[in-house]
């Protein structure tokens, strides 16, 4: 897939990925920024809309597919990954992109989130991280830190916040990045990298929820902070600081170990600024590549297109050999 094509081949513009449905997010919601970037990234990658399957769970963020003019599937709370994995495995010709909330993905969906890391299915997972359960009125999400109390909480949060990037790296995700909803350029470029990545990609996107999260607002993210008397922006870009999370030689176990530790150190580092960018990336065989040697027909067809009947609708599956195993006249 090519990112920068000569303008003569540009067929789809960002607006071609906009559906007719009007987003019903609150004014100022970070979700607007994310959807714009998804549409722009798709346009810049010239993804054919009918070849894209946009998935989501349930939550404010999970309304995303309805606003994007590709095939869209708004699933169940916490279950977007298994649905999306089913689609991708059965029809790998589709680009599968999954969007959803932090509650959806790291809370109720945590088991799928973790286990998806073991499969390296070739899809992109974008988590809108607003530290709250938006659609159910602002309860703490799993990323909200211990002791914090956004205005929607009757009591301070008694749970620690989870570090989703650390989990993803440990769980086996082969592309792990963070971006910010209102850093349009960075987010767009990160999404493009994630979509182009072959394997399971996670993009955790910091997302202001002006309605319920009064702690980490757009202003807060935009604020300059003081470090030893100097002013710095709240967020910074890893790449600009020379950080390179990509494993160059996926067969080099030493490089892998080194890059993984570097990434784990970085995502857990105690720095006043928030780093954005790709923490870790490696290209490894994806799930289908792993199973194809054992299921010869999958080398020839996708599951979705495997022929099963003839023109007269007679099943083409010949069970002779299977019957032979149980027939009493075969020996």
């Amino acid at each position, binding site marked *: 897939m090519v990112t920068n094509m000569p303008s003569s081949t540009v067929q789809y513009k960002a607006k071609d990925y906009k559906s007719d449905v009007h987003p019903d997010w609150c004014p100022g919601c970070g979700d607007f920024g994310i959807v714009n970037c998804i549409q722009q990234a798709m346009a810049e990658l010239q993804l054919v809309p009918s070849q894209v399957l946009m998935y989501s769970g349930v939550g404010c963020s999970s309304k995303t597919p309805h606003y994007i*003019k590709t095939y869209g599937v708004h*699933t*169940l709370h916490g*279950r977007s990954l298994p649905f999306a994995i089913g689609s991708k*495995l059965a*029809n790998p010709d589709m680009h599968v992109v999954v969007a959803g909330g932090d509650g959806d993905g790291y809370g109720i969906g945590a088991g799928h989130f*973790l286990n998806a890391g073991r499969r390296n299915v070739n899809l992109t997972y974008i988590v809108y991280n607003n530290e709250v359960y938006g659609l159910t009125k602002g309860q703490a999400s799993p990323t909200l830190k211990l002791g914090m109390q956004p205005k929607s909480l009757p009591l301070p949060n008694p749970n620690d916040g989870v570090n989703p990037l650390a989990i993803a790296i440990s769980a086996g995700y082969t592309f792990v990045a963070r971006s910010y909803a209102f850093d349009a350029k960075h987010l767009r470029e990160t999404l493009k990298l994630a979509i182009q990545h072959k394997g399971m990609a996670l993009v955790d996107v910091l997302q202001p929820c002006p309605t319920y999260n009064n702690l980490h607002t757009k202003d807060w993210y935009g604020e300059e902070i003081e470090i030893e008397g100097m002013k710095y922006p709240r967020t910074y870009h890893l790449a600009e600081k020379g950080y390179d999370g990509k494993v160059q030689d996926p067969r080099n176990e030493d490089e892998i170990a080194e890059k993984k530790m570097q990434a784990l150190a970085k995502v857990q580092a105690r720095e006043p600024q928030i780093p954005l960018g790709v923490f870790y990336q490696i290209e490894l065989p994806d799930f289908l590549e792993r199973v194809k040697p054992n299921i010869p027909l999958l080398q020839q067809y996708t*599951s979705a297109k495997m022929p099963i009947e003839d023109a007269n*609708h007679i099943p083409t599956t010949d069970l002779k050999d299977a019957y032979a195993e149980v027939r009493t006249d075969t020996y």
Partner: protein
Amino acid sequence: MEITNQFSWMIGGPQGTGVDSSATLFIRACAVAGLNVYGKREYHSNIMGEHSYFQVRVSETPVNSHVDPVHLLATFDDETAHIHAHEVVPGGYFFYDETVTKLEKIEIHPEVKTLALPYAQILQEVAAETGQPLAKLQIMKNTIAVAASLALTGFEIKYIEKALMGIFTGSKAKLVPMNMKVAERAYQFIQENVTERFPYRITSVPGAPPRMLMNGTTAVALGKLKAGCRFQSYYPITPASDESVYLEGHPEYGVNVVQCEDEIAAMCMAVGAALTGVRAGTSSSGPGFGLKAEGLGWAGINEVPVVVLNYQRGGPSTGLPTRHEQGDLLYSIFIGHGEYPKIVLAPGDMSQCFYDAFNAFNYADRYQTPVIIVPDKALANNTASIELFDESGLRIDRGKRASDEYLAELASKPEYQGQYHRFNNSEDGISTRALPGQEHGIHWYTGDEHDTLGHITEDPETRIMMHSKRMRKLQTALKEIPQDQQYMLFGPENADYTIVTWGSCKGPILDALPILQSDGISMNVLQIRMMSPFPVDGVTRILERAKVKIGIEQNFTGQLARLVRMETGIKMDHLVTKFTGRPMSETEIVAALREIANKKTEKVVLTYGH
């Protein structure tokens, strides 16, 4: 008096020590000789050491169940002797290992003959003769027990050899001669030590048609393969996982079998796959089935064809996880919050397992809705010799699908306006379905109520349209699905008693019918195969003309009886139930029905079997 080709054999021992292989050999040998066989398998929720047993019934005429009396019990261990010796009928035989079992401690009828099988000695002799290490031969104790048993009945040894050849194929074929040596010794031992002729005889049935040895999980797997199911997601659970493992073990058919992190994922993954057009299924048992509730509802509101198996086992909760029950009927019908159309099928024998699995994919595609199949553990794990499947009538029906040409034409019309309407209203409730990837077919799915494009709506009018459209599919299905796939009436049209039943209970009931007939009790049997949509009219018609109605099923509350009453208002006059975790036998059914006929007992609770 001699009884030929009506034989009930039992073998038992600690789990993991060869009880199953013995039964397999015994069953195959008899089947190869042209006999009908029905094998009942009982085991603990344990990998090694707990008591398990297999009961095999052999008959010249078809059999669909086991009977309580045992003609010959073969044991390897003392526990089996203690638990089962009392079941051997007078005149029957008890084989035991005298190194572990002391006869005087066993409760057994005085007219039962006992014989200590010299397992160790035979194996030693064969080891000496062949030069094989004794340890390698230990597993052939099974062959000794089977061969000795069959020898007693006068069965021709050549069928044992044929059976071994069917079992040990390919690289394992070399095991046949060694096993035959052991079998011959066992035959010889019986000939030398049994002087009085055993009254139960097994002889080959020349010209018997070829049959298949089938259990329910294999039959379902075969039905799925034939139907073109090419995606299966599952999470291991007893007894369902045998089906998935069968598919995994046959990768040549191209099924991508994905073992998931849990049953929620398995359900959602199957639905995600089904959305792309592949025929997809997922299989589980009670605990895992329950976790599929939300995914089922989602498939229902999004009109996704997907096939879900719930192999029922003993509940509630973990319950009796390796035992039999029909406790999930109402749960399977009403699973999922809110209302959506689901088709629920309950096969009653191994063949129905195959056909129901095959048909389920047609129904799912045609009515664009989930289909649930609810076999029970007795179907899943027992083995029957059955007729070859009749494939001649099988056709694939993918339902209303939008071809690329159809979509292209649609897209060329002014009304199209850049939008394909996946969920258009229609008289039969079914809309035309495009698949992701089709050029002009872009549409959406959501678990929320939606408009024809698939976008969320809370508009009450659209709601009425959509909800009614979906639910209407049940009426369409009820009209279109062949009647005999909905219910079957066995026996005379008119009878003094009408039995209403489902699932594996059908087997012992059909076997009991001729016996009761010879008692002068005339009965017919209504097997309900489709539980949702419920065949109200047909069942009502039959039950309205029925004189005395008897519900027979394996659960505590009489779930089918309750369902029939809910749907038709008709109450069963009598109920026969069992909830020990063990399937009903022909013997029990005969006794229960006699009791009802003679004493008008309202409710008979069966309890036989360990």
